[in-house]
Every structure is written in structure tokens, then in C-alpha cells.
């Protein structure tokens, strides 16, 4: 930017505009998912029961995420995976099957989540099992409220209200503590 001509002002505007569009599309994609996605409620299993609220966000674990997902033989760490779930009992979702490509669930009550294989555990004479990350493993809470919420959560069950898109994308809508939704915000 040695000399600034009207053309350079255009360059400045283009940079700011392209970056604004990038940020806006991030927000829009998320809001569309939260608004249009199918809502499911899934039970949360604490990752470390002694320290659920580390700082000001919660680390959330799911029964269909941690080390127990049977995956196809040829799957590798870092691969994309589609996991089909079925609600066995209220908020208890269990894995029906996994695939490396998107597949329409045979039963309309089933739901398919898109995830990334975090780690594959291979044992002899057994199908490999994997930890799967869906991008719904953390929930930020306002500064200073983490510890308070932690007290509230003890001995109570928490679950997460999730929005699932038609392509398997998934987002957290809210946390549900003892039947009450906490910290749910408007979309914008």
C-alpha cells in the first residue's frame, strides 16, 4: 500500500467485505442448523465427574461417542464417519450402524450424525471400535457461572438438546439440567 488511490480504497473494502461474508456465513450456517434441524435430546455422560466445569465451559461426553462405536474395518483416525442412532429409551441414544458415506436411515425415527474419528482401537478377532467427535463436546457458559452450575448438576442428570441437519451436521441448542433448559440464547 505505498500509494493509495481510489482503487486501493476498493481493495480495502473488498478485504473487509470478504472477511465479513466469511463470518456471516459461519453464523448463518449455524443458525440455519439450529432453526431447521431435527431436535433430539441425548443424555450426557460427564467426562471427568470431579471436574465437569473446567473454567467456563463444560466438556460433554455421549454414549455414542466414546470408545464404543463399532466402525468399518477400513476406517482411519481423522476420517469422516456417519453414525446412525436409535432412541432405545428416552434420551438414551444407541448406535445402530456406522458408515463412511452418508446413508438415508431405513427407519425414520433413526437419526444420522456426522462425526470425525478421533481414535481407533483395534483388537484381535473383533471389529475395530472408535472414539467419535461430533463437534458437540463443549458448551460455553457465562464467566463465573461454571462452578454454580456444577453444584446444580451434581446428582442430577444432564442432557443436551441437539439440532441435527439433513446432512448429519449437529449443533447444541441448550443444556437440560433436571428438565430445565439452561443458558439458551436467541439465535442471533
Amino acid at each position, binding site marked *: 500500500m505505498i500509494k*493509495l488511490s481510489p482503487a486501493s480504497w476498493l481493495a480495502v473494502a473488498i478485504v473487509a467485505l470478504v472477511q465479513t461474508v466469511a463470518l456471516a456465513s459461519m453464523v448463518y450456517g449455524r443458525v440455519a442448523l439450529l432453526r431447521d434441524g431435527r431436535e433430539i435430546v441425548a443424555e450426557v455422560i460427564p467426562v471427568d465427574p470431579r471436574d465437569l466445569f473446567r473454567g467456563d465451559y463444560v466438556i460433554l461426553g455421549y454414549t455414542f461417542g466414546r470408545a464404543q462405536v463399532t466402525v468399518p474395518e477400513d476406517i482411519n483416525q*481423522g476420517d469422516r464417519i456417519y453414525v446412525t442412532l436409535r432412541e432405545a429409551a428416552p434420551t438414551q441414544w444407541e448406535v445402530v450402524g456406522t458408515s463412511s458415506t452418508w446413508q438415508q436411515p431405513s427407519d425414520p425415527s433413526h437419526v444420522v450424525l456426522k462425526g470425525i474419528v478421533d481414535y481407533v482401537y483395534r483388537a484381535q478377532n473383533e471389529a475395530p471400535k472408535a472414539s467419535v467427535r461430533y463437534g458437540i463436546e463443549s458448551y460455553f457458559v457465562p464467566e463465573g457461572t461454571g462452578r454454580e452450575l456444577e453444584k446444580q448438576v451434581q446428582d442430577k442428570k444432564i442432557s443436551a438438546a441437539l439440532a441435527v441437519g439433513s446432512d448429519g451436521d449437529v449443533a447444541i441448542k441448550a443444556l437440560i439440567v433436571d428438565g430445565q433448559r439452561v443458558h439458551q440464547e*436467541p439465535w442471533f
Partner: protein
Amino acid sequence: MRSPGTHPEIANRNLDPPKNNMWSYRKRIDQDLVRWREAGWVTPEGETAIRQDLEKGVRTLGLANALAILSAVLIGFAVMSFVAANWQTMPRILRLSLMLAALWGSYGLAGLLARRGMTGFANAAILLGVGIFGGSIMLISQMYHMHGNPADAVLLWAGGALLAGVMLRSNPSLAFAMVLVIYWGVSEALRLEKVFWPFLIPWALISAAYYWQRWRPGLHLSGLALAGFVISLGYRLNDGHAHGLVVAAGLAVMAAAIAGERLQPDRPALWSGALNYGLVIALAGLWALQFFEEPALDVFILLAVLALALLIAAIFWGLRSGNRGALWLGYVGFSVEILAIYGKTIGTLLNTSLFFLVAGLIVSGLAAVAYRLHARGEPQPATP
């Protein structure tokens, strides 16, 4: 008189245009001024005037610009820690609007500063805008509880930095883009536990921007990043034992640089840079073969001799062609190689005194070679 340790060959070659390398320029002119005054070419008043002019250039603009860049980095960090502190008492729409206002404000400020000819400050404001773009990505991820792959966010940020760097021709922003891409490549390689080839795509784009800008420090950043990538191949390919390939790649780069210098002698900086990064790659591969792979003794001795020969060749080349980088790599590499061999062999086959004797003989031979070269390279005395 020249201070000891300055190689005459190198001092006589003007490798860098002065503006690109203010510090070495100042050092050189300091020495030259004394010589010129003693030769009677420059009056003492002239020398004082030149020195004052130099001081002014460095002290005011250089320092102010450096401080401006630092302040942009600090404010960028302030924005990010503000984000991390979870300002969730504000509605989301307000948070988003604030971020966008800060983004547009930074770029607008950059435009105003550039218009007034304050290029350094304008670059700092651009860097601040890029920092706010990254902070906004993190803010949005946090606001919507997106816990996806953090590396994707870094890549998006790097894209924004590259865009700003190219559109506004801002070198600090381009440098930051490369830093982000390196971070992205390393974290993806660690996550996937394999060679992360996609790294080469943004690397090539940013390197092309450096070349287009004719920005030499940026090209060094590119060379460093690519050398690191090639060296990492040795630990990833062939079950982590591909260091021979790394050595071959490094030697091939060096050969290409030497051939290139013959074919296109009008671009010495490009070829000497390529030669030095080739040397770094070849040495890293040789060191991995010697000290990481635990080879048999005869193989180890062969490799050590090869490494020392390569280093002596680098010093020789550095002196002959005025390639200061090769010279220093040669000296430093030689010392490290000797120390590493010492560490590996002490108490095993060779005893300490024998080792020092051998090392001493090698170094004295090197000194003799260096002395002869020095004597040959010494220009006819210009000073009375």
C-alpha cells in the same frame, strides 16, 4: 582495517540492497566509513553528516513502525482474550456487530494511514484487522458452541490474512498467513498421524505472494516451512524410517541450486537461498540417520564422514561464492556434528583423547584450507 572475522569476499559483495537489511547495512557502512575517512575520500564533517542521517532513519521510522506492529499484535491479543473471557451478558447480535465494527474500523484506519504515506502504521492496522478477523472466528465458534476441528478455523483465518496481504500488498499480513498455515499443517499432521500433503497448497499460494511482492524475508519463511515439511517426511514415510530420502531430497535441492546458479547467474540470492535450505534438509536427514536410527558402527562412521565432508564443502562454497548463510551453516553444523559424535562415541569405541586428536586434526586441516582461501581472496590493499 577490517575487523577480524569478516570475510573479505563477503564484505566486498553487496548481497542485500540496503533497505532490505537495515542492520547489516549499518554495520557495513560503519566499517566502510572509517576506511573511507582514513583514505581521505570522506571528510570528517561528511562522515558525521552521514552518521546523523543514518541515525535519523533508523531511530524514528524503524522504531515507530516496529512499535506499531507490536501494538497491533498486543491489541489483537487483547481482542482474543476478551473473547475468551466470555462476554455473554451481551446479546449475540451486539457481540457480532461490535466485532464487525472493529474489523471495518481497522481496515478503514489502514486506508487512512496509507493515504497519509504512513506505510508502517498502515501495515500495523491491517495486521490488527486480520487479528480481529481471527478473534471473530473464535467468538462465533464459542457463541454457537462449535467444537469442530480447530484447525479448520485456523485455515479460514490464514485465508483472511492472505487475502488482506495480497489485496493491500501488506508483507506483515502475508508473514502472519504463513505462520498460521504452519500451525495448521503441524496440528493436522499430529491429529491425523500421517504426512499432511494438503499443507503444500496454501504454502505454495503464500510463497507465490512473497515472490510477487519481491519480499526476501518472506521467501526465507517459505524456505524454512518447506524444509521443515521435507524433514518431517523422514519421520512419517516408510514407517518413520525415510531419512535417506530426506538426505537425497536435500542433496537434490543443493545440486539444482548449483546448476541454477550456472544457468541463470543473474539471480544469486535465489540460488544461494535454495542451496542453504537444501543443506539444512540434507543435514537434518543425516543427523536422523546417525543419531536417531542407531546404525551399526561402520554405517555410523560412513555417515559421520559424509556429514563432515558436506559441512566442509558448505564452508568452502560459502567462502568461494560469498554465500554467508552456507558459511555459517557450515561452521555451526560442523560444531554440532563434532559435539554429537563426541556424545555418541564417548566411553564406547573411541576414547576421549583419541577423539579430540582426530577432531583437532580435522579442524586444523580446515583452518589451513580456510587460511589459503582467505589469502587468495584478499584483495590488493586499498588502504594506505
